């Protein structure tokens, strides 16, 4: 990957996406470039296609037109299982809520990505082993207590669940972390603390972070703030107000 270190983490060109053939496009993005190690905040009203964009960046959805390049790999022409492998190896995801597998304990949830990706398993092993790395990440996010490791997600507060999810996303040092409104279930105090932890972790490892929210107040500590309306030329059906940004 040394040749591609010069390339941006994410590069979007002339992207158009519609859910169904014939339906109006949800996304129409001429250009979006996220540099490596950059921490980007994407802002947009509900229904403007933020989650759809993240699915495209993470290689879950395939772009209809245009190109999404993740770490130098063009996703549109990449075969299905290669996209899955790319995501498993290089992308950590955090969702809005319901982040954890209910039947696995905290530590197993955190180490889950290294079960699916050899690359992330190796990177974790290089730092002292999968379990040790999981515990280290949990400790960094304030969940170092040993009694925490064996608990079920149902026995955690929502804020604790979010931190476990963040630890999982950071497991095995993926180059890119994608977070889809991970703080919307938290109160103001916990939002700030959670965000701080996440950002400092990403800063330590030089992780690229794409963070989506409709809460403008959270945007301050980020390197860069992007409004959906500015990059997306498509007027999403549910978006209130003027659809044509820029």
């Amino acid at each position: 990957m040394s040749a591609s270190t010069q390339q941006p983490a994410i590069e979007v060109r002339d992207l158009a996406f519609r859910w169904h053939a014939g339906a109006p496009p949800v996304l129409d993005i001429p250009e979006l470039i996220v540099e490596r190690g950059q921490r980007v905040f994407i802002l947009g009203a509900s229904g403007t296609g933020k989650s759809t964009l993240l699915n495209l960046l993470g290689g879950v959805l395939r772009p209809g037109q245009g190109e999404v390049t993740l770490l130098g790999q063009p996703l549109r022409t990449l075969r299905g299982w290669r996209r899955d492998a790319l995501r498993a190896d290089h992308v950590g995801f955090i969702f809005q809520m319901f982040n954890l597998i209910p039947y696995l304990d905290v530590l197993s949830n955190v180490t889950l990505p290294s079960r699916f990706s050899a690359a992330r398993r190796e990177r974790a092993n290089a730092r002292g082993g999968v379990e040790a790395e999981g515990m280290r990440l949990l400790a960094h996010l304030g969940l170092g207590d040993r009694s925490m490791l064996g608990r079920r997600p149902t026995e955690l507060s929502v804020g604790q669940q979010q931190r476990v999810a963040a630890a999982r996303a950071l497991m095995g040092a993926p180059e890119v972390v994608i977070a889809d409104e991970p703080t919307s279930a938290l109160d103001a105090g916990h939002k700030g603390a959670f965000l701080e932890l996440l950002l400092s972790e990403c800063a330590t490892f030089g992780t690229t972070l794409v963070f989506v929210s409709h809460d403008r107040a959270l945007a301050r500590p980020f390197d860069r703030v992007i409004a959906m309306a500015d990059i997306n030329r498509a007027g999403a059906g549910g978006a209130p107000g003027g659809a044509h940004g820029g």
Partner: protein
Amino acid sequence: MAIVRLALCSLRNRWVTATLTLFAIGFSVALLLAVEKLRTETRASFAHTISGTDLVVGARGGSVQLLLYSVFRIGGATHNISWESYQDIRNHPRIAWTIPLSLGDSHRGYPVMGTNLDYFRHYRFGREQSLQFEAGGPFNDLFDVVLGAEVAHRLGYELGDMIVIAHGTGKVAFLEHDDMPFRVAGILKRTGTPVDRTLHISLDGMEAIHVDWHGGTPPPPGRRLSPGEVRQVDLTPRSITAFLVGLDSRAATFQVQRHVNGYRQEPMLAILPGVALHELWSLMGVAEQALLLVSGAVVAVGLIGTLAVMLAGLNERRREMAILRSVGARPRQIFLLLVSETLALALAGIVAGLGMLYLSLHLVQPVVQSRFGIRLAVTAPGWHELALLSLFLAAALLVSLIPAYRAYRNSLADGLNPRI
């Protein structure tokens, strides 16, 4: 393998439904195997009962009926054959030996059979095995009786014990030959055939206890013969129920059969045991198939139940699938997850079913043995059972594809943002 471990964890998380499903599968598997076991063991047991006998001869009637009462002691004969006809037939040059059988009496529900010493010499069962004595020997005296293993074991008889024979074959005897008790002279080794349930006396003994009877009614008390007096009387039987025939060569079978069936003096029937058994199977085939159909339906119900449980779980588990996708699981692996869950359930169900089967076999075996003389061998599953189980697993695999495909589709359509 990560997926299989996940599948097991997931099942453990839903252990109540998983256990219930497992038992539903277990019961259906146990039932299927039990029906199969009963079917094959019954057949084996029937086929095991007689060997080395070329022909069975009785009064004219149904061939299956003749086989049932003469060999299996099930049901009774409507007519006997006369002693003279028997003597006449047995002198046929191709006949090597005969075993006369005289049935109709019983002892505490077990059939009493009159025969002669040729029975112990020539009767064969299983793989040409002859009868062996556990204790004592054949009957010598007029009032000697030789017990089958089951009779001796169940009723706790030993050599020298005295036994009273009841008239007729009913469970509850109203008329007993209590004036002429028999002494246990021998006990046979277990054979796993109806021989075990039979009490054997000599034809003379059989005649002795009936000699002063007329048309099924005993003589008035004052005019009965004493055991001592009866020994002075001519005890040549007037008739017998049936007889088994061994030929000097198999090739003579049809010749002798024709000879018997065409016998002028008395209507008689000679059957080949194998052919009659075959006829019996085709009679039983309908019942067997009905049983098999029902147990097959139970298996289908078990599988449909599993399918319903898996499908019902899917909606609640959409988020789980999305999370797995987000950490790198491929759609194919989601598919595999669901398949392995269903298969794990089916496998555990099979194990539970085998457990239930062997437990119930263990409990039921003595009852079946003493009631029907059929030995349900508690043996490890054979090829036939393994084939049935593989068939079941294949069906389970097919069924598992349905929830797996649904989950696969969902996980693609939902992306990483599962909807409710």
